[in-house]
């Protein structure tokens, strides 16, 4: 479990300045660390061809989730200095459109915080879910002078169901003995657009609250019983900031960058845990025992993990198993492999949790399933 951290440290130790390290290595012509990465795309030789493909620039297009956008952009930029011949364009249009674009096959890869439903899988036979990082949905609120509010999932669900309408409700007060909860109306704020964030959030509420599962359910957009909507993360954030007594949910990086207070949520072990790098990774570890082969898994409300944050989620890159263009497929897999194995420190810098080694292992196995004209493209180095 500590291995991703080790990997990060090893990586950290290798670089004086990150950019300097990578550029310098690239200038040297042959990357020692990345060498293993590119051996994978060429089954005949483990060597990297220094003056790589002479097919000209390869351009790859992807669209989807906003949640991993900052880290994807950083990875793309860094990868450019490793492989200048590959130009990747990722656009954060939202998980909903990302899945649609992937199903319509108008992009080279899709991206989503919600895995494809069985119906959607039927439309894209052989769709692969490649997890990249783990993120968290932060529950943020606007109550001036009240730091460190703690809630259980049941209480949170009751607030979003409209059953708890005041912050001084005994159920909230009971969970916050260290605070004198104010007599203030609760305003719940949700995402009005189709979002993977909403999917993770409602998936969590449905797991911890039977009432939520029956009345509302799980989805990228649902019928909210009460509250009002904000457009995208920025809209939810703005609504929370402008509405005293409001509570909303956003991707973790938004609350971090803007500096809004976050709710510590109670996990299965009964501990109140705020979203952090460690607590998010521990949530993934809580599901290691029963990971499905295709990694289409929700990691909300983990059964194990003393300090696991319960509203965490994987985010996936969506790939087709059978592809047509060999050069593009190789480039894409090179990028994903590099990001998963060399890009974890960049992820940590941006408060994303890298995949635990066990998950990474299964992920690399999924990458090996990609074929062009029946031929396997990627073999993981030993």
């Amino acid at each position, binding site marked *: 479990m500590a291995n991703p951290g080790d990997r990060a440290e090893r990586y950290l130790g290798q670089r004086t300045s990150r950019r300097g390290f990578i550029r310098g290595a690239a200038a040297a012509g042959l990357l020692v660390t990345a060498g293993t990465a590119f051996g994978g795309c060429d089954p005949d030789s483990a060597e990297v061809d220094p003056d790589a493909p002479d097919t000209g620039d390869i351009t790859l297009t992807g669209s989807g989730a906003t949640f991993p956008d*900052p880290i994807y*952009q*950083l990875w*793309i930029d860094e990868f450019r200095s490793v492989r200048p011949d590959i130009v990747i*364009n990722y656009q954060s249009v939202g998980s909903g459109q990302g899945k649609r674009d992937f199903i319509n096959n108008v992009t080279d890869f899709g991206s989503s915080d919600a895995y494809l439903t069985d119906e959607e899988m039927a439309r894209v036979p052989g769709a692969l879910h490649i997890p990249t990082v783990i993120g968290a949905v932060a529950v943020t609120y606007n109550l001036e002078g009240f730091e460190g509010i703690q809630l259980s999932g049941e209480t949170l669900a009751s607030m979003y169901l409209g059953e708890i309408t005041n912050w001084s409700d005994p159920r909230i007060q009971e969970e916050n003995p260290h605070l004198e909860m104010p007599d203030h109306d609760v305003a719940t704020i949700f995402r009005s657009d189709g979002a993977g964030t909403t999917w993770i959030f409602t998936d969590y509420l449905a797991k911890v609250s039977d009432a939520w599962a029956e009345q509302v359910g799980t989805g990228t957009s649902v019928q909210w019983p009460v509250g009002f909507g904000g457009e995208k*993360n920025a809209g939810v954030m703005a609504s929370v900031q402008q509405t005293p007594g409001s509570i909303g949910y956003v991707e973790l990086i*938004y609350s971090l*960058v803007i500096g809004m207070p976050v709710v510590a949520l109670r996990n299965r072990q009964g501990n109140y845990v705020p979203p952090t790098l460690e607590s998010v990774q521990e949530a993934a570890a809580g599901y290691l025992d029963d990971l499905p082969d295709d990694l289409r898994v929700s990691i909300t409300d983990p059964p194990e993990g003393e300090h696991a944050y319960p509203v965490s989620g994987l985010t996936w890159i969506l790939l087709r198993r059978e592809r047509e263009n060999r050069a593009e497929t190789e480039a894409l897999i090179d990028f994903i492999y590099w990001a998963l194995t060399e890009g974890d420190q960049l992820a940590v*810098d*941006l408060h994303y949790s890298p995949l635990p080694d066990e998950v990474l292992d299964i992920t690399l196995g999924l990458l090996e399933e990609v074929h062009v004209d029946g031929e396997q493209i990627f073999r993981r180095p030993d």
Partner: protein
Amino acid sequence: MRPASTMRRYRRRTYINRFMLVLTVGSTGVALIPLVLILAYVFQQGIGAWDVQFFTESFRPVALGEDTVQTGGVLHAIVGTFIIVGVALLMAMPIGVMAGIYLAEYPANRSSTIIRFCTDVLTAMPSIVVGVTAYILIVQQTQRFSALAGSVALVVLMVPIITRTTEEMLRLVPDSSREAAIALGAPKWWTTLTVVIPMAFSGIVTGILLALARAAGETAPLLVTVLGNNNLAYNIFGPMQALPLLAYRYTEQPFAEMNEQAWGAALLLVIIVLITNISVWLATRRRQAG
């Protein structure tokens, strides 16, 4: 001496006249307030993002935990906007102008009535509908987002504007000019080309520029067709960035630097549209002087 009653009525009319004048001037002022407020606010918010980097560099990702935050610029969006709108203009101009000539210069019949009606319907068409149509017809068929699909969507929005202004301008050319040319033995096409069009030329240019200004600021049709691109791209068969698209997307980013760039892009867009409109004004003025 006029009778007192006449004087009284005259004075009343004067008062009403003054009252209505104040009302109309006041209304004009009220109508201008939003424009002034928008210009001032966009300028105030956006000017901070304008530095050399803003115009000379493309997107750079924001990295937390670095000492120096690299913000990059919007060069890729500036280039993209000019390419997308330029290609659209090249397609819309001949179609719009020729359709306008047909409507104005040839006798009204059933087909011209239908064309005029369709043009009016197209003018009122929500731009997102045009964008989605382009997505289904071009993006889904070619299986890729492309600047060209965005240009085609913009063409659909530009053509009706160009067609209707061209038609109106050609109608303003007095028939006596046409008759004079025909009397001298010029065939109809020669009359149209060398007499009618030159006389209406600045008016036609006005229509084209107005269409250009409309297209440059459109976000919705581009959203679903060109996708956006964080790299500097010149390939019209691939995804491309555009200023309105960049402004829209950057407002959703968590990073303050990118929010500021969104304002900077909005300011640049407003200024481009403003310059276009001032060109329209100059073109119109020359026509009146000539």
